[in-house]
């Protein structure tokens, strides 16, 4: 390799390395700062107190959806592994909104209640036919029964 190319190569690699380090630092810094959402347990731990409006993310608790009979008002509970938070929303919900679905609600805290101005449904990265899902659910339920039977046996 001749000296000119050698010099260019060193220069280009040095600049590229500098840019990569800068980008890595920015990404690292934003990691703490760029939270798209807070989970109910984070909110209850006081992590979101700096924000007037923020996004709350979690699963819709089974059996918690209550629709108002005379308006578009809906109340439901969003849960994560360690917390639960009641949410109130007036408006049209996305098609995917249902029990046990991940949702992201934008809004503010009103006492212990979260008043949402927008509710988005999040879906996971799993794609499969309905029959397969049903079969898996059945197999899973079967396993549950087996496990509980085993537990019963152990208790006996």
């Amino acid at each position: 390799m001749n000296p000119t190319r050698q010099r260019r190569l060193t220069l280009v690699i040095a600049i590229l390395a500098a840019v990569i380090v800068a980008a890595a630092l920015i990404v690292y810094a934003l990691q703490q700062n760029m939270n798209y959402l807070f989970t109910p347990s984070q909110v209850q731990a006081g992590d979101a107190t700096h924000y007037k409006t923020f996004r709350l993310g979690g699963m819709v608790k089974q059996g918690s959806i209550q629709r108002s009979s005379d308006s578009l008002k809906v109340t439901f509970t969003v849960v994560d592994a360690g917390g639960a938070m009641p949410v109130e929303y007036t408006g049209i919900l996305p098609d995917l909104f249902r029990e046990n679905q991940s949702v992201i609600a934008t809004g503010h805290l009103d006492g212990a209640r979260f008043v949402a101005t927008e509710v988005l449904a999040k879906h996971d990265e799993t794609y499969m036919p309905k029959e397969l899902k049903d079969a898996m659910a059945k197999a899973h339920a079967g396993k549950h029964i087996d496990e509980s039977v085993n537990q019963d046996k152990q208790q006996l």
Partner: protein
Amino acid sequence: MANWIPLWLHKLSSPPVFYRFAGTLRPWAIALALVLGLVALYGGLVLAPPDYQQGDDYRIIFIHVPCAWMSLFIYALMGIAAFIALVWRIKLAEVVAMASAPIGAAFTFITLVTGSLWGERMWGTWWTWDARLTSELVLLFLYLGVIALYHSFEDRRQGARTAAFLALIGIVNVPIVHFSVNWWNTLHQGSTIRLLGPSTIAPSMIWPLLTMMIATKCYYVASLFGRARADLLALESGKDWVRQIAEGEVRR
């Protein structure tokens, strides 16, 4: 040592050799892209079963995901070509880098539009500023910046080298787009297809996706070769090999 690979690449980097090579390969790439694309569309839109939670709406995945892969793949390739162009000043590398930019920009644009349509149906919003969507938008702006910079110079080679610099620096955005769904909490879901570990998609749905991936790659090759050939003719106009081709065209 396999000495013939660098030797062959060296020969290929000569404009007349690449011009002929690309001319021979291009029709095959177009044909393959068309056939595979149609097969993938039929497989994805007709044969694949509806999804358990998204019903038929998920079928936009067969356009969205291959285009998103291409937007990253082309950027990575453009970055490598830009690197070679900057260090070794090989004319073909400059041409490949600059010819890739509009194709990559088109794929990025399609990714954003189809993602927006999908998001409206599933998430309930056209757009949200989460890390994946934002970094993909930055990718589009990087492509547009490269194209604009290239065309803002009177001398095309000067423009190509300057734009190559931007292309090279922008390459840091590629891993950010890819890993954004792991690094941050995002509305966008994580990766379905994984090179390491099992993919989370049924086999009846994955084959049209992978077929479309190959089809988009073939389209890229075809489009790139067409653009690169035209650029090479313009850059080398006045050289003997171009004059011969021009005379051949006139005689016909």
